[in-house]
């Protein structure tokens, strides 16, 4: 493989694993190089819009951790959000180009199919079905005294 170079990477389009979503739901596709500040600015502005009740965060591979981070920040900022988490594999197609092709033949390309773990998280202001898998109710709102460290909680 030392003579091959990755020239293109594309993700397979998959429908969201949440039924009964409104057609205009915002899907935040988190990438590995996405800035959390940019993501959260856009997502918070969308959730502040009147009539916007749900938002979906999705990411795969090394962007999974960043996806969860965005969701946790939004839950902490807004509060009272219901959550459904789905995990699955996503197929990523990588095209590798031969850097040392044979002189009398065309350039050889390799197409590699990879299954990478991905996560899709639905956040909703409205109550969701608590019986579906991956449902997480909103955390109870409580004001902690400022002098208590959160690490001291049992």
């Amino acid at each position, binding site marked *: 493989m030392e003579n091959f170079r990755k020239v293109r990477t594309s993700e397979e389009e998959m429908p969201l694993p949440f039924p009964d979503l409104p057609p205009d739901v915002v899907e935040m596709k988190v990438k590995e190089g996405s800035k959390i500040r940019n993501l959260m600015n856009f997502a918070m502005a969308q959730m502040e819009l009147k009539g916007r009740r749900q938002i979906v965060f999705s990411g795969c*591979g*090394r962007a*999974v*951790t960043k996806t*969860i*981070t965005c*969701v*946790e920040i939004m839950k*902490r900022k807004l509060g009272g959000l219901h*959550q459904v*988490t*789905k*995990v*699955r*594999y996503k197929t990523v197609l990588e095209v590798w180009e031969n850097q040392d092709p044979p002189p009398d033949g065309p350039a050889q390309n390799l197409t590699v199919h990879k299954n*990478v*773990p*991905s*996560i899709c*998280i639905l956040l909703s202001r409205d109550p969701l079905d608590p*019986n579906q*898998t*991956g449902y*997480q109710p909103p955390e109870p709102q409580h004001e902690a005294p400022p002098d208590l*460290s*959160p*690490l001291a909680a049992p």
Partner: protein
Amino acid sequence: MSSGRPAAPSPPPAAAAALPGVAPSRRRRRGPAPGPPPVPPTPGSAAAAAAPGGNDVFVTSRSDFRAQLRRCQRLLAPGGAPGAGTGGGRELRLHGLGLAVPRTINLALQLQAGAGGALRLHASTSSVPLRAHRHRRDGDGDDGDAPRHNSAIHIRLCREAPCA
């Protein structure tokens, strides 16, 4: 627990002689990472009340993936769970923190694929406050800093259909 990985072959004498500055006995062989300390569930905790025979697996990014997979399969097999009796472990909880989150999802999906769809995944996320190792000096108070958090995932694998 042994990882089942074959031991790395020792370098031939010619290779060892080619590295004059490195003694062969000082070369470290990477073994399985030590597991986290056992966390006994408190009787009043919600996790203990929700799953009396549950097993917790803390996934790290340093331990061998195949060993983790075999360990989880053994815990889910009939009679594999220590406190589940002869009925087998009906529930397994995987926990991954930070960089180990994709590996945790991969492990859960591999277990589900290996079980032929008989397992049900129930994923939830959280943020864990980190205990920072701070260099405290005289008059240098760091108590006002906001605590740093890291993202975590918790995946429950259940054999029966309702996973609640």
